[in-house]
């Protein structure tokens, strides 16, 4: 497979995943806001600021807006073309990448991305958003899930598909760790509220934004605590958005591409991913809290950056020659 094509598959997939994360976070935050009894501007600001922090959009937002309001944040993260992290920009970038690899992906996949892009660009999305933001984000997430399903069902599960998996799981592991990190940061200092009503609601929201609430409740019947939520989102072996699950999938895709025997490594990406994977497979939530959750998540994010860099170096280093 051409290095450029591998690179495009990787990024196409990352952008799709990123758009989904954004849509989910906005949806959940919107729903949470509706539970507030007190809707004063300060509260609203406090409520929406973490969204910008999670998505690392804060600086650019401040450049264009004086105040954080729900409307401004949703607009900025959904429709603002000037924001490269906005949903519309992610979908546009995914589509540009898809266009360059149309002969690799199936026509059905291309059409699914293209329709989603046209939906966002041509005003239909805006109308749906105005009718009901929550429904709009659901519809959008559905469209992106349809892309995942279409990929799975119509594309050869060969090298191109493996690169799609790499992009998807790098991005997903990263976004789960960031959602967790930010919420933890914000939720924990308010010590007096630990275990209180707001706290539980907030942790449930974290789970929801990772589509994890129902799965979590099946595992931890009746209890929502910060400790268990963190454990679930970092270490659960079968939940598809947990960091450990993502690292294992990432590892599988890497070995499928190189054909290297498991237990050995044939390139730097495999070595780094193997290390991340064994760290996640053989740690406990107690050990993580001992080192400090924030530090653990920070290290995880750095490993993911290194792995992505090593993938490019291994498979796409010809590109700029």
């Amino acid at each position, binding site marked *: *497979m*051409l*290095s450029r094509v591998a690179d495009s598959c990787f990024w196409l997939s990352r952008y799709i995943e990123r758009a989904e994360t954004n849509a989910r976070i906005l949806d959940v935050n919107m729903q949470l806001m509706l539970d507030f009894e007190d809707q004063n501007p300060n509260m609203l600001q406090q409520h929406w600021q973490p969204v910008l922090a999670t998505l690392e959009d804060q600086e650019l937002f401040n450049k264009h807006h004086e105040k954080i309001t729900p409307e401004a944040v949703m607009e900025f993260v959904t429709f603002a073309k000037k924001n490269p992290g906005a949903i519309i920009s992610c979908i546009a970038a995914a589509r540009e990448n898809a266009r360059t690899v*149309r002969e690799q992906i199936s026509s059905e996949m291309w059409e699914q991305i293209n329709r989603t892009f046209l939906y966002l660009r041509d005003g239909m999305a805006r109308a749906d958003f105005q009718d009901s933001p929550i429904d709009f984000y659901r519809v959008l997430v559905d469209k992106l899930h349809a892309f995942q399903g279409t990929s799975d069902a119509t594309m050869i599960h060969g090298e191109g598909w493996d690169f799609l998996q790499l992009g998807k799981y790098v991005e997903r592991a990263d976004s789960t760790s960031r959602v967790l990190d930010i919420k933890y940061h914000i939720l924990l200092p308010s010590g007096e509220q630990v275990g209180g009503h707001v706290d539980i609601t907030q942790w449930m929201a974290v789970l929801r934004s990772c589509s994890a609430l129902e799965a979590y409740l099946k595992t931890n019947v009746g209890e929502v605590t910060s400790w268990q939520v963190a454990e679930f989102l970092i270490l659960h072996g079968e939940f598809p958005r947990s960091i450990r699950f993502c690292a294992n999938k990432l590892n599988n895709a890497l070995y499928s591409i190189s054909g290297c025997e498991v237990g050995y490594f044939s390139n730097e990406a495999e070595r780094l991913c193997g290390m991340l994977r064994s760290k996640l497979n053989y740690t406990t939530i107690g050990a993580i809290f001992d080192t400090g959750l924030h530090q653990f998540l920070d290290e995880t994010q750095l490993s993911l950056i290194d792995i992505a860099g090593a993938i490019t170096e291994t498979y796409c280093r010809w590109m700029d020659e």
Partner: protein
Amino acid sequence: MNRLFKEYEIGDFFDEMFSARGAVRAHYQRLARRFSEMEDGEFDRKRQLAEKSYLNQGITFTVYSGDEGTERIFPFDLIPRIIPASEWEHIERGLIQRLMALNLFLHDVYHEQRIIKEKIIPEEIVRSAKHFRPEFMGFDVPKNIYIHICGTDLIRDRDGVYTVLEDNGRCPSGVSYVLENRQAMKRVFPKLFARYQVRPVDRYAQDLLAVLRHVAPHGNPDPTVVVLTPGIYNSAYFEHSFLARSMGIEIVTGSDLVVTDSLVYMKTTKGLRRVDVIYRRIDDDFIDPTVFRKDSVLGVPGIIEAYRKGNVNLANAIGTGVADDKVTYYYVPKMIKFYLGEEPILPNVETYLSADDKDRKFILENLEKLVVKAANESGGYGMLIGPHATKEEIEKFRAAIVADPRGYIAQPVVLLSRSPSFCDGCAEGRHIDLRPYILCGEKTSIIPGGLTRVALRKGSLVVNSSQGGGSKDTWVLDEIDEPPSQSQSQTQSQVP
């Protein structure tokens, strides 16, 4: 009956569907019947359906001017152009003859130049052709095929005679629309389609791949073939990717390729992989910055050296532009006689060379009546349509012709045939042409039909997509079973 054809005006042109007296031509009768059964609005709904499907599939081309919405759909007209079997048979023979002559001509001008020595074509004309590549004199291309893919534009004059307007022997585009238009028509009018026996077009990609494999260097039986595109911002990118997908081969940009020791490789995740045949959709000028235009960022440095050494083959060959130069065009009928000893089956449009003193005098005296074309432009650019031009434009061309007589030709205004086209709720006559795609490999073949382009602007004679043109599906019929004309059905479908 609905209003689709109610106010149709045939005008003073050859109309593909109606005879001069208003009767529906035999091969259009089933279509006329089906369309007249439609309810008002049904046609428009179908049109919107087709457009939406083009948009969703991303079958678009890029327009360079204007910022927002640079991707557009190539307007598609749902009223097909129908060609009876006997007419197609004539066209096919004519095109095969013509391409044979062009390939013989290219071999000759890059070798012995018999055609110059025997004074059929003046040496000056060949030497001054912008796309003539003297650096390739004496160079042999595999199987002596220069133009592997040719798009020859045909028009019908007022008497319905198929006439050659120009040959495109460099990188003719548009074939993907032939295939996509067919898909769209099958979806939108399945019943009508089934009532006609339309010859299929979908083997094009397989035929093209066979041609590309046939011309591999050293007769390599299992060559790696790729499509080389300028990239996703090129106006024809959709087509490049469509063809690569349909052939099941890689599409590459210049930066995906690298030349080492005069061998061409593509950069893959598993290292460098050898490439044998390149279907390049980049013009000669841009293909190798070390040989042609130095500022080209689209090309592959060193690729021409690899080509010269016979390590890679390019389709079409380097230097074919000398054959589709508009001045060379004038000589094609003479070439056919010279190389093949045959009379041309398809005539040229009457052409005046401004390089010729007598012709130039005539041209300059009759600019307001003639069409003037720059010898080396395409896409409808560099053209003067005298009767539609302002005084200023005419004077501009007059000066240009005087300054560079070799650079222009002139032709009488040909009143292209018209075909009913859907405009604003009903059918109106619009001018059309036809670009069949001729493939030359082990044998020469043409997919039945081609791209019918239609000038959707009222009165316009320019069919190019960059100038407001659209396209139609082209149906070549498999049988000669045109229903016997019954005077009853003719009166019924007569245009009031």
